[in-house]
């Protein structure tokens, strides 16, 4: 019983120490450790915010088994950059403002951040952002992918997304003729 009590106290002490730290440690699926600002993690990720609030952060590295080290590194990098960014003028409402979309265009640094990513890294980051409940990062990465698809033919989109065509030739031709405006500059 004494031993158990000691263990419990140690656990409490560890939790208190963890609560005092201003960073959290995240462990990728391949065992790499990354430190990220606790404030930024809680602000940008609903999942990490929940874990921090619930005390389920492990100071030896919280296991994120679904996220590889490259994607997690990008997540942490994004959190750090976001913490240091200054809101652009575009995000400050002007004197004449009308009905605006809830989606805010990526800021310059966010564009640069996703532009440098390889195809695989970008797709991994979308999944990581989704898993961690990072709405803004999901916005920015999905926006980037949608931009990549602009002006592309169905064949080219299939290639980007690695999707098999399950239409017959006749079906495709019929729809193409019906909606010719979407394929040619008529």
């Amino acid at each position: 019983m004494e031993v158990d009590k000691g263990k419990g106290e140690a656990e409490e002490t560890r939790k208190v120490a963890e609560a005092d730290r201003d960073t959290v440690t995240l462990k990728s699926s391949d065992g790499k450790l990354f430190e990220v600002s606790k404030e930024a993690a809680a602000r940008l990720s609903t999942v990490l915010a929940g874990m921090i609030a619930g005390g389920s952060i492990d100071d030896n590295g919280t296991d994120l088994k679904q996220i590889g080290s490259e994607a997690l590194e990008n997540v942490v990098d994004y959190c750090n950059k976001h913490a240091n960014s200054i809101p652009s003028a575009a995000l400050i409402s002007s004197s004449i403002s009308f009905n605006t979309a809830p989606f805010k265009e990526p800021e310059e640094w966010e564009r640069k951040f996703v532009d440098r990513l390889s195809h695989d890294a970008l797709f991994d980051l979308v999944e990581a952002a989704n898993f961690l409940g990072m709405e803004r990062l999901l916005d920015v990465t999905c926006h980037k992918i949608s931009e990549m698809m602009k002006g592309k033919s169905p064949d080219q989109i299939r290639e980007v997304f690695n999707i098999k065509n399950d239409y017959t030739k006749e079906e495709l031709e019929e729809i193409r003729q019906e909606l010719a405006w979407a394929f040619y500059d008529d």
Partner: protein
Amino acid sequence: MPLNVSIVLWHLSPGIDLHLPGPAGRRAPARPRSTAAALTGRVRTGSPIRGGASRATRSPSPRRPQGSVQVRPTLTPPPPPPPLPEELVEEVLLRFPPDDPACLVRAALVCRRWRRLICGPRFRRRFREFHRAPPMLGFFVNDLGDSSFFVRTSATCPRVIINGVAVGARHGHVLLRSKPLSVHRRHPLENPFIVWDPITNQRRELPLLPVQVPGSFHPHSWNAAVLCAASLGGACDHLDCHNGPFLVVFVASSNNGMVSFVYSSEAGRWSEPTSEQHSYCSINPAPSALVGNALYFLNWSGKVILKYDLGTWQMSVIYVPENYYFGRVVLMTMEGGGLGFATVVNSTLYLWSWEAGRETDNGWAESGSIELMDLLPDGADPTLLTVIGCADSIGVVFLYSNVRTLTVDLKSRRVTKKSFIIDNSFMKLVRCV
């Protein structure tokens, strides 16, 4: 005869109703009449798309072995990545630019799964919710009141063939006259209105106005407006009501004062006429503005605005400020939802807003201005600028100039020269949001 221009703003995604012929094909699900059914789809919130817990139960992505760092051979191409999960494909497709509807059509031809996703009512609803203000894809021009044609402002907007003469448009409905407005066909009692949904191409011809005693009603001037039937009290967000119930409000000046009729698509008939003896004003066919629970129509002089209350069916008048000279004015809904107008005087675009109870200038006050002199394209004569219309929901005002039509973005203050030329005489612009 007035040259009418109807600005059309819509999300084209509902028009993409791809279906395949033959036994292999399945028609895309029909759009629900009620928005409630469509609202069962996910609404964007601060939470993750599927939540961390549910994603955590998924098997690891097979894109690369988990738990090891990927090392690629230098000379062989990398293996193709597996497809993104459907919920993330949806997130990507949601971010397609709404002013380039061809993107969604091409994406729907990628595979059957994507087609089902894009054509489904949930995606359509989410697409509208995500982008909110519909983009301008083009507008209708009336050729001397005898016919209308469509001018595309987006390169990938489909051609739209209009069969009738555009009178007005709002909430995805276009109000037409079936016969030319000129000569003897102008009379509103002889020429039925048609409400047309350009997305689904559904047309509904309305009965003629119910005038009991022939010859007892001689309108001097008139205008009409179409709107979503759930507009009263802000009961609809107008993102998905283009094929829902609608109202048509007809107002006219006559020997008996002001007269109005309301058509309800749900009742399938016109109301009895409502008269107002004390608020006489001639009515300009310029576009009406829908502000709160009222429609506002401009009179011919541009000095008087007729207010039609949708709740009480009562009419009253508002006067523009008397001590100022305004050029042509265009009614609009201002930031915050109030009534306003735009006008250009001496190369400056002015916005004025009205507030009930304000004691100065008949309730009006200048709420903003943009000096256009330094923003104009080469060759534009600032003394010839005239405001000819607006798409207030996206904050764009249209100007006539001697160098083609100009648009002024009220937010960015950017002036753009369009590739089309519209005569500035009697231009009419109608909102279709």
